[in-house]
């Protein structure tokens, strides 16, 4: 499944990084602790988080994650979108909380 597929199914907002919408998703990782993601997320994972600052893109790019989903209607900080565009890391948004969104994504990716 590609990032653009889950955008439609989960009705996600696209804030930036649209160059990466055809990235293939290998799985997901839900965490708000940056060194946890750095240590344990896998290449191609979708990262679900409430963090909205620039280091999120730095980590997503260094770890070659598929995309980032900001939860609870959070909006990314203004200075991250250019970075996301350059790195081709889609920054997506959902109104839902981590629990619901993670559950839905899990079902989609393991079905």
């Amino acid at each position, binding site marked *: 499944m590609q990032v653009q597929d889950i955008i439609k199914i989960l009705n996600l907002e696209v804030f930036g990084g649209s160059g990466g919408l055809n990235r293939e998703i290998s799985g997901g990782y839900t965490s708000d602790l940056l060194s946890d993601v*750095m240590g344990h997320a896998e290449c191609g994972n979708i990262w679900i988080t409430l963090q909205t600052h620039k280091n999120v893109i730095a980590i997503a790019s260094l770890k070659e994650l598929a995309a980032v989903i900001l939860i609870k209607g959070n909006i990314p900080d203004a200075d991250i979108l250019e970075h996301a565009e350059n790195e081709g890391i889609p920054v997506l948004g959902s109104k839902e909380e981590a629990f619901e969104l993670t559950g839905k994504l899990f079902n989609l990716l393991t079905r």
Partner: protein
Amino acid sequence: MRFEYNIEAGNFSKAGDASSSFKKILKQLNVDPQIIKRIVVSLYEGEVNIVAHANGGKAICEVDTNLVRIHLVDVGPGIPDINKAMQAGYSTASARVREMGFGAGMGLQNIKNNADILNIQSEVGVGTELEIIVNLPKAG
């Protein structure tokens, strides 16, 4: 080959820049992607620690035929108890830093798990020096 990067204290919007630059170099040098990942995690955690905990410093990255050696050198405040700092979950990060999602006390563990060798030297009031070595397998 030797590459040097300055790391500014407290400047989180630049945290990760050294790791990102060095990653591009390692890719150009055709280093095994699995090994690049381990180097990048180690360098990033060391870099962020200088931004979050130290008064500034630098990363010196050397690529040899059979290993990559990274020196992270900062100008203080130093680590009073290195064994304690190495414990997962131990952190002295400020409230502001924790709010950003740093300060889980996992960074040094991540380095230990990804490096072949990690040496830490620190003197309170002087500074901290990390030596990180990741071996490169023989090509072919």
